[in-house]
């Protein structure tokens, strides 16, 4: 549990960070909260020769409004997310999920950018971002670009990030007023990844679902958007048969790994239950 040797860099601007990452090449890794990378380094499963620490870059911090969107700087910690009134008012599902990430110590260090950019299927925020239709801002040697969260994840730890690129901000369109939301996460204990988790954002009118998006965490090598399951509930009042249909549709796209959290069959089964419960709870919150 002792990392290999590495050099440490602390740039002050995004441009400097990008420059460092592109000059140092494959052996350099950006360091945000470090809660995924540092344990991997201690196990020597990751042996970067250079760490480019992003903590010195003021421009990566903060939460702001941009028209009808909320823009969250990549180095915003989970704790800052939880303390934000803006998030509480407009994106409460982010706070519900952030509270389920490990413990306060981890939330003081862990960043939202690191959480979404690392491509770890166990992280909670990626499925949420897909559910919310978020966009990521990437800055690289060739300039900046925006990418939809749904386009970002390619495999476990594989993302659309090109060499030298840094994820600098997350931009989310404000969900409709009166939307219902829920993040249901089954985990064995504080600090554990989800055995299965589901995010739901929906709107209701006259007791029927008008719009719905469902995201799934840790049930595949990437976060999933359960579109068929979401379609199945549109126009319904979430009766028992519909919930069953939605859970089945969600389970159909899950392919979790068997691990100490349980065998594949169990993880899919509780994945379906998380979808059901998230739908019910979201509907109960919708106005």
């Amino acid at each position, binding site marked *: *549990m*002792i*990392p*290999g*040797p590495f050099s440490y860099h602390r740039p002050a601007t995004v441009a400097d960070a990008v420059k460092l990452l592109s000059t140092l090449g494959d052996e350099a890794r950006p360091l945000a909260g470090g809660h995924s990378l540092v344990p991997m380094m201690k196990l*020597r499963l990751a042996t970067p020769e250079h760490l480019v620490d992003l903590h010195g870059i003021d421009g990566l911090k903060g939460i702001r409004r941009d028209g009808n969107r909320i823009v969250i700087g990549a180095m915003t910690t989970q704790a800052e997310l939880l303390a934000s009134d803006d998030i509480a008012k407009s994106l409460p599902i982010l706070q519900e999920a952030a509270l389920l990430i490990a*413990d306060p110590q981890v939330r003081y260090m862990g960043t939202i950018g690191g959480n979404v950019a690392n491509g770890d299927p166990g992280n909670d925020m990626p499925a949420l971002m897909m559910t919310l239709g978020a966009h990521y801002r990437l800055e690289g040697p060739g300039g900046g670009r925006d990418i939809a969260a749904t386009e970002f994840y390619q495999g476990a730890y594989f993302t659309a990030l090109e060499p030298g690129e840094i994820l600098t901000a997350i931009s989310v369109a404000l969900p409709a007023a009166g939307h219902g939301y829920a993040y249901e996460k*089954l985990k*064995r*204990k*504080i*600090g*554990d*990844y989800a*055995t299965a988790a589901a995010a739901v954002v929906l709107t209701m009118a006259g007791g029927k679902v008008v719009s719905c998006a469902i995201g799934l965490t840790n049930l595949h090598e990437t976060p999933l958007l359960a579109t068929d399951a979401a379609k199945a509930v549109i126009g319904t009042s979430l009766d028992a048969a519909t919930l069953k249909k939605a859970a089945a549709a969600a389970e159909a796209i899950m392919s979790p790994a068997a*691990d*100490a*959290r*349980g*065998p594949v069959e*169990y*993880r899919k*089964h*509780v994945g379906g*239950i998380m979808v059901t419960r998230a739908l019910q709870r979201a509907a109960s919150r919708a106005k």
Partner: protein
Amino acid sequence: MNDLTPTREQRTAALEGMGCKRKRVEDARFTQGKGNYVDDLKLPGMLHGDFVRSPHAHARVKSINSEEALKVPGVLAVITAETLKTVNLAWMPTLAGDVQMVLADGKVLFQNQEVAFVVATDRYAADDGINKVVVEYEPLPVVIDPFKAMDKDAPVLREDLAGKTSGAHGPRKHHNHIFEWTVGDKDLTDAAFRKADVTIKEMISYHRTHPSPLETCQCVCSFDKIRGELSIWGTFQAPHVIRTVVALIAKIPEQKIHVISPDVGGGFGNKVGAYPGYICAAVASIVTGKPVKWVEDRIENLTATSFARDYHMTTEIAATKDGKVTGLRVHVLADHGAFDACADPSKWPAGFFNIVTGSYDFPTAHLSVDGIYTNKAPGGVAYRCSFRVTEAAYCIERGMDILAQKLGMDPAELRLKNFIRKEQFPYHSALGWEYDSGDYHTAMKKMMETVDYAGLRKEQAAQRAAFKRGETREIMGLGVSFFTEIVGAGPSKNCDILGIAMFDSCEIRLHPTGAGIARVGTKSTGQGHETTWAQIIATEIGIPADNIMVEEGNTDTAPYGLGTYGSRSTPVAGAAIAMASRKIKAKAQMIAAYKLEVHEDDLEWDIDGFRVKGLPEKTMSMKDICWAAYNSVPPGMEPGLEAVSYYDPPNMTYPFGAYICVMNIDVDTGVYKIRRFYALDDCGTRINPMIIEGQVHGGLTEAFAIAMGQEIRYDPEGNVVTGSFMDFFMPTAVETPHWETDFTVTPSPHHPIGAKGVGESPNVGGVPAFSNAVNDAFSFLGSTHIQMPHDYWRNWKAAKSLGVFAA
């Protein structure tokens, strides 16, 4: 007498003696980060050692090439079995009479086995060196399933034992067999089963787990070539035993070995044994002439040093149709891993598992245990329990519930019917123990009344009916557990470690101003000895506990003791402390008589000093006696006031308790909710109720972890799949239920202060309470026994197999 004269109550309170909820004196440093642990020790020129470990569970080691490792800046040496052979230390004896490789000698027998020891100027360089050592392995077929270890064609694990048809504990039946241990009357027991109205038989497994103290095993060894002295600072629960073992195997005169256990961050049995890290650090220090530190990391701790349990217990009970037990038959398949390194008293290959008749009056019983080798880490330590007692308690407490189910009786009622009665003590059990004292009916009834047991059963019946009507997806279980522990190893007539009788010791020196120091042969790893030992002395000799400093863990200053494990500290060392105090008190009485100019027999003890019988104003306090001991002792008497006592207990002590767990389980997810947990402990005389409560909280938390998910699990290739705290269940405060504690007091008749020991009871009694709750919850659906651990997915699997998801 005037208003300023303290009352008797005030004088008693000022002592903070036995029965006082005295605050823990050691916490002043622990809560401020000022403890002094092994890893805090930094000696000039200190080097760091770390292990190359085997990725394979079973493989031949074809070659080890250290060339590139030695080129890494800072790396000074790479020690292998070949190096150790030059000092005859490639193998070491185990506490169980087996031998164990220090470093891989020709083959490896479990994943993460120690293969080479890299010594470097810092920990980083050592780890860099490890990654450059090239080991060539030839994988061999593995034995992971204990039930296949004695198959005819099972791979031979211990080639070093080829041709040895007997081991330290008698004949071996198979090349992977270690020992067979039998106790009890087979014929009588078989006859009881033939005559029985009702019998049950169930294979009850207690899975492999690990004590996982927060501080891992570690040491610093420093050899002084000029003086020829070896100093070892280590996380030892039994420092004197370590000193003797080192003297025997390293051939260094024992007076030149200094073993020091500084503050130790939890032991739970993990720190009783001797590990390759200690030997390698000592050899490295002797070779380099510099101090060498070895600190285990979390993965190493979980995968290589000392697992616990892994007992597979085929349990049979015979009974009459009205529920009176008539016989117990148990066979245990004991998975010891690659080497038999169990930390038991030498003559007890399965520890005190023969306490398996529990709290019940079995007229006859028979027990056999087969120890076997597999490709798993060695160990088999008593994880917060006396030797194999938690396995035994789990076995009988599950067995009694299964019998109750078969009889259609309430499990509490079945227990009440079969308890050893108060008047039967001292009670001779069918498997050879003499229980010292107990009042089981009182404890059980107090538990049942406090929690409204009858009301809970009514609620459960309603919940079950609602479940069957489809109104709820939650089922409710009540887990009753009534355990009897056997602690305080132990009497020299049947307990020794490597030939050393398992006494313990105390030396007390009082200073002229009415203060003193007590040195004890045990070693606190968190139990609070610095607090409680002083309380015993305070009550015994009337010096305030605050004026007594307690010191443990330094073999140069502490009297020889066998250490802290198996809840033996209070039963054995606690007795030595009382006996040393009484020697002091006897001398003090002579001094007081001389000073008060009366005969000794005219004096009586009064809280904190002596007074003349019939003349209550004529007194001499212990404080004044201390002063007198250094300036005006009676003619012919030696000055000073000190005593030492070595206590060989006449018997074990037998703490007991009644626990109940109330649990709901959501059958759709397997998620459980502990609604209530009530623990009544009877540990005899209570020295510090606050510390007892803390011990019970800690032990219950471990029991909760073990029963509900904590395991060391191997895949079929022998890879450990639960080797870090991400997967090995270590509950946080959030998962830990609320604990309700209670007590009765049945003193031990043979212990000087009547105390029995408590630290391990909650682990012993807690595990069956949790497991019985899960099993009780599912029983109405037709199951008899569900194996631990009861984590979410296994609960779901049980629910599924019982048909609760049928359309």
